[in-house]
């Protein structure tokens, strides 16, 4: 609270590792933005790229980016930031065998080399226009010597970065304490004002609310719509803010027939279309998600570069869904396992719509990592999933993540992959838009997914806290102040 200049925040999820390359959760992104810096910074409001650890950058050729680094920056442990740190970090994370959790974030980089103490070159594997966006997002720079010494698990227990906040305490499973970095360089992120941030892991929103009531929390986020609504209605002690996020909810279906289901109805286009028609997305958005959520019909978030909206869309029409099922040879429907990892009530509501057209669902709620494992093994016929694109404002962060024959690709469609490859590797914006559009069109026509809605996040804070959330679902402690 304000009195002792410590902001108490709750995380729902316990990070598997604070090292931002070794977790894949939203909380990890929040930590990452506070503790570490990227080379580049994108202003979340204007979407303008600014220098952070780098001061300027130029493409030397299609695949080589040269960056000038900022001088006089120090890591939290006192080490100086130099080109060596960039080279070491890039070369470490780019290597697949080092096991960075979300390969997509780093595997576009081939390597980095030092030109001089404050100049580096990063080589990409393919032509990769989204490089700037990724460098301003998930790629943070680590202190070379320290990281070489302690590795990811050491970094997880005692993180060291250059960011506006330094980590002073990690009690796994319980809380992290961040403290203002007094020596923070002149970054576009700005200087922190609140001295301490105490982040506690409280998995249950309800408990978070209770703690907020009792005054031991100052700010919570990702508060479900119902509770947020009640909070804003009932108490003048709290501010409730709603902001859209890049997170998109969708139904994935086993179009490629990877799961052992026999017969596998999802290999049939008609069935997938029926699923798309069966669900009343508007009702879901209006009654469950509320806020700034929108119905989505493409496999990406509308603000992302290349994410067109005018693709085939499927209106809510249960009769048509039934008819399609009948045409596909399932007049009485069929039954299928139906997985989800979060938002049980959305999943339940969706499964209820599916049941209504005859698709009997055997609902299974797993933890994310467990579902992902199953998914990678191709054992999930149908699931309700979400993707937040790591706040990368480029369609490649989502559609290319899932439709390029990776282990999470349920469509395994060659045509889509081909177009996405072109779009991903072109430097020409027009070409990229064209091919993303083609790919997204095809995904919609083939109804590989049933895109549902975009998420929103509710931020509930005490009146003591002043904060304006951004649309990319990242909590920025640096931007928080006391009232």
């Amino acid at each position, binding site marked *: 609270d304000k009195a002792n200049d410590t902001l108490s925040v709750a995380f729902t999820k316990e990070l598997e590792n604070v090292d931002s390359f070794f977790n894949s959760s939203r909380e990890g992104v929040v930590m990452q933005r506070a503790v570490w810096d990227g080379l580049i910074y994108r202003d979340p409001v204007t979407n303008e790229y600014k220098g952070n650890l780098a001061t300027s950058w130029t493409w030397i050729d299609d695949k080589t980016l040269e960056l000038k680094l900022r001088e006089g920056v120090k890591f939290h442990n006192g080490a100086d930031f130099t080109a060596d740190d960039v080279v070491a970090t890039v070369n470490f994370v780019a290597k697949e065998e080092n096991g960075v959790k979300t390969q997509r974030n780093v595997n576009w980089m081939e390597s980095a080399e030092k030109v001089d103490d404050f100049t580096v070159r990063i080589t990409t594997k393919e032509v990769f226009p989204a490089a700037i966006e990724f460098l301003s997002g998930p790629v943070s720079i680590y202190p070379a010597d320290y990281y070489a010494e302690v590795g990811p698990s050491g970094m997880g227990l005692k993180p060291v970065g250059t960011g506006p906040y330094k980590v002073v305490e990690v009690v796994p499973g319980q809380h992290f304490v961040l403290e203002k970095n007094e020596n923070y360089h002149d970054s576009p992120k700005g200087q922190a004002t609140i001295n301490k941030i105490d982040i506690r892991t409280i998995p249950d929103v309800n408990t978070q609310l209770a703690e907020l009531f009792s005054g031991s929390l100052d700010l919570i986020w990702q508060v479900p719509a119902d509770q947020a609504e009640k909070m804003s209605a009932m108490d003048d002690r709290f501010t409730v803010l709603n902001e859209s996020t890049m997170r998109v909810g969708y139904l994935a279906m086993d179009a490629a027939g990877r799961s052992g289901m026999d017969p596998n109805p999802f290999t049939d286009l008609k069935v997938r279309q029926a699923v798309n028609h069966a669900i009343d997305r508007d009702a879901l958005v209006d009654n469950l998600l509320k806020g700034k959520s929108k119905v989505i019909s493409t496999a990406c978030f509308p603000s992302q570069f290349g994410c067109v909206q005018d693709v085939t869309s499927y209106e809510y029409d249960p009769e048509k869904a039934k008819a399609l099922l009948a045409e596909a040879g399932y007049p009485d429907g069929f039954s299928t396992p139906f997985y989800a990892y979060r938002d049980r009530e959305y999943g339940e509501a969706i499964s209820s719509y599916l049941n209504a057209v005859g698709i009997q669902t055997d609902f*299974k709620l797993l933890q994310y990592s467990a579902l992902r494992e199953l998914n990678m093994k191709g054992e999930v016929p149908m699931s309700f999933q979400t993707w937040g694109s790591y706040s990368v404002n480029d369609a490649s962060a989502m559609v290319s993540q899932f439709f390029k024959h990776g282990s999470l690709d349920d469509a395994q469609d060659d045509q889509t992959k081909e177009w996405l490859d072109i779009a991903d590797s072109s430097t020409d914006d027009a070409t990229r838009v064209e091919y993303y559009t083609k790919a997204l069109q095809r995904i919609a026509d083939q109804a590989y997914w049933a895109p549902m809605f975009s998420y929103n996040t509710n931020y509930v804070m005490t009146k003591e806290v002043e904060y304006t959330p951004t649309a990319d679902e990242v909590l920025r402690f640096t931007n928080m102040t006391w009232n």
Partner: protein
Amino acid sequence: MSVHPTIDPLLEEIQGPTPRQILRKRVTGHTGLLFGLGVVLLLVIVAILAPLLSPHDPYIQDLTNRMVKPVFMGGTWEHPLGTDHLGRDYLSRLIYGARVSLLIGAVAALISGVIGTAMGVAAGYFGGKVDAVVTFLINVRLAMPVVLVALAVVAILGGSLQVVIGVLGLLLWDRFAVVMRASTLQVRRREYVAAAQAIGASTPRVILSEIMPNIVNNLIVIVTLEMAHAILLEAALSFLGLGVQPPTPSWGLMVSEGKNMMLFEPWLVLIPGIVLFILVLAINLMGDGLRDVTAPENRS
């Protein structure tokens, strides 16, 4: 022909009531038992007649009518106990939930009862090595944390009604084994068992017709108590998200789903919790009562 004169029938009256009469008298005098029995019977009837009694389909959602308050909190008779977070009728879900709880309780108790009784009776009757093995198994079983193991197994096999029932059935036999073993040991020492053996009765016959009838009262008591135990465990598993899965209307699941709105709509948690509490309470009272009324006569 009579070797010895018959005892004067007037002088030596047959005393007292038959065991059945005693039982009836004790049952009717035991309020706890009557209450428990009544509630359980009522809920069984409700569960059986669920389709007739419930005002709505428990699975039909209506997203525009979410969390309607129950009638005593200002709601309407359309949904006497309100609706849940997906607009499903709460009363209907409670009624169908009785099916889930009772089914799980009964079948799990049945499975564990068969396992535990077989083990316990064998241990008590044959003693020696059989007893040593059974006692060891009971120790092993008790050493395994039930909730944890059940959660793990459900996580591995997936949470369906069958899996939950099976897991609980395979985990809750310990008390049956312990009690049946002790009762059998006790009854086995009675002289009527030796008498039956001396008559030439076979071992199965001795067990079935001499021993079982005398320990069946203990068995019934444990069945009820374990049934309550299984119901509570299922609710806990469902509450933790690893029991039966939505949209199955399990009471534990309802508490868990209502929990999110607990601070604002406490009735969402209170109603299924209270129903669960009453059912388990009633079953326990029934069990305690049965223990009391079937206990061998004491002086008072």
